[in-house]
């Protein structure tokens, strides 16, 4: 059974239809990349999968681990193992970074009938993973994302991912605005988490990120549909030739 199965997905936001019949299947252990021009629906796809309520699904279905994802609230999807690394991480004054992540971990643990982690169990793990992402210890008690630099915010997303250990991690333009050092660090964090039980959906404009996170499949999203699919070499071709449909266009290619 596929981890994620999207069939004929149509979705709109504020009355505009953005996704117009999207199909995609992702198996555990795979890294998929979605590329496409601005406005093609990449972030809408991410938001729908994370169950953002302002995005209305008008047709199609999405199965996650065999369950109907479109029936889930955002928190339920998260507990089932969906994680979205935000393109624009939100600042939350007054809630400590570590406290927030521990609350999230415990919410997920509770969902699975596991015991809650106390601060003593949590902190060493948190600090160890911060180190991998080369984050300053001072960020532990700072409010979530408040006053963080762009790079710190993106690393903080990856840190949360590392702590919550999702089955499917969606990275929504995590590379945008990152300098090359930060990009390497983020990629290192992602690569450390690759494994047979986890899948990634990496949404990006640029081939550059894919130099560091090598995808198994690359898809081209144009006007709400996947118009091409291929291996990592497709990303290089896109870098060269842009997103226009090539002669070898395979309209609804599905990965294996």
């Amino acid at each position, binding site marked *: 059974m596929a981890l994620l199965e999207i069939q004929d997905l149509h979705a709109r936001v504020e009355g505009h239809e953005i996704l117009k019949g999207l199909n995609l299947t992702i198996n555990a252990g795979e890294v998929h990349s979605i590329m496409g021009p601005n406005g093609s629906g990449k972030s809408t796809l991410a938001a729908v999968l994370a169950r953002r309520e302002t995005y209305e699904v008008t047709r199609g279905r999405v199965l996650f681990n065999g369950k109907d994802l479109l029936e889930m609230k955002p928190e339920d999807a998260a507990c089932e193992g969906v994680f979205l690394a935000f393109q624009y991480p939100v600042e939350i*004054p007054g809630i400590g970074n570590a406290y927030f992540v521990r609350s999230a971990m415990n919410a997920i643990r509770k969902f699975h009938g596991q015991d809650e982690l106390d601060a003593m169990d949590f902190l060493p793990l948190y600090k160890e993973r911060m180190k991998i992402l080369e984050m300053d210890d001072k960020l532990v008690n700072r409010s979530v994302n408040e006053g963080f630099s762009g790079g710190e915010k993106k690393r903080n997303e990856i840190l949360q991912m590392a702590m919550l250990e999702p089955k499917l991690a969606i990275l929504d333009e995590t590379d945008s605005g990152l300098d090359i050092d930060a990009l390497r660090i983020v990629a290192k964090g992602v690569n450390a988490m690759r494994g047979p039980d986890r899948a990634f959906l990496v949404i990006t404009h640029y081939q550059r990120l894919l130099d560091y996170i090598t995808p198994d499949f690359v898809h081209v999203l144009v006007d709400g549909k996947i118009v091409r699919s291929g291996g990592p070499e497709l990303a290089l071709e896109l870098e060269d030739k842009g997103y226009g449909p090539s002669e070898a266009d395979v309209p609804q290619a599905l990965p294996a």
Partner: protein
Amino acid sequence: MSTTANNTENENATATGKLGTYLEAYGELIAERQERDPVWLRQLREDAWRRFYANGFPTTHDEDWRFTNLAALAKTSFQRAVKGSGTVTAEQIEGFRVLGAGCRLVFVNGHFAPELSDVCDLPNTLEICSLERGIAKAMEGSASNGSAPVGCAPEGIEQHLGRYADLRRDVFTALNTALWDDGAYLRIHRGAVIERPIHLLYVSAGAGAAIMTHPRTLIVAEPTSHSAVIEDYVSIGDETAFSNAVTELVAGQDAVVSHFLVERENLAAFNVSTLRLELARGTNVSSHSILLGGGLVRNNVHPVLNGEGAECLINGLFVGAGRQHLDNYMLVEHAQPLCSSRQFYNGILDDRARGVFHGRIVVHKDAQKTDAKQTNRNLLLSDDARIDTKPQLEIYADDVKCTHGATIGQIEEEQLFYLRSRGIEETSARNLLLYAFAAECLDRMPESPAREFVAELIRVRLTDLAQNHQVAVLAAPVEEETQHWEEVR
């Protein structure tokens, strides 16, 4: 007694319609206290009474009451509670305990309840007793030619009581001064450090009729002393009651005092409280007002920085839902140079609740180098909730720094979604965001049992609010029983 009708009285005709019950109460009280009250006090009460009776309750034409309509209060006939009215058990009081408090005075319907109070193990640098008892001691003392009374040395009462709270400015202060039955008297000795907070618990307990109480508190913090006092207003049962409290807190040179006001009465309660702070040179006084309960609440805080280098923190949180009306009236007077005041009030309002923040700063002519700051931040959780915020600066000195600012916002959908997308369910996420907003107020309190106590009250209140909010969204709107203060005319 003045019976002259003048224009002011005519204007207030609707509001003064029920002053008869107050007149009755005053007559009764004066008769009862003929023997007990010393001459100076009788005089004070009489002045105050005249002031109240001549003016009656203010209307919304009065600039200081523009956002708060008192018609519902003025219409209700409140009875003065007799001693022993309302039965309150030790178990009931136990539920209001402040963990870590050093001592507790309990007043039931305005009368001191020694059997429910706890004043054991007090350091001898702290004097605490009921105000009535303190005055009685003083009378005995002067009768027996100056011999020292035991337990409570009341010589400060005459010197301070009624000297600060201005009954000419404010009719509620006048009404309290005329009608108080009892209250607390605290004196913290020079240099004393009182580690544990002092808990003053004012209980309204149903007595079959709408009752009124006028608790009066006098706190004298002598030079270089350190102390913390919690004034706590609670209800037992859901009957309506009117608490009209006045507290005078006098801080001597270099004294450090934290005052906490906690309003957690039932939703039928009317509560007007006036805190008058007198700050001498070098004092550091903080006022923390936590308004969580009550139907119609007016919280007056009036510090006068009356000595060089005095510092005052005026910190508050008000949380309203249903049709609660929570009005905060700050009057910060800078009377001497080099003083600083900081006002921070956060409001959270849901349903049709209404909040008011009126922050007035007066910098007198001599108060050069004043540094005054005022911030009011509000979170509105429903389209029908409302906040009126009004800064007012009156500056008569020319070398001062005064700033003010106010914000009004909602819970951000983006933040809520962010929390939920990490697995935190909606009610908890909402609760976390509310608590984060409220915690700004807690962060300004020093770490202490008092802070722990209010933090827990706030946590419980906000959890309720977060849950109710969800229910409110799901269920059809229910017509509420409580009056809407705006609509009562």
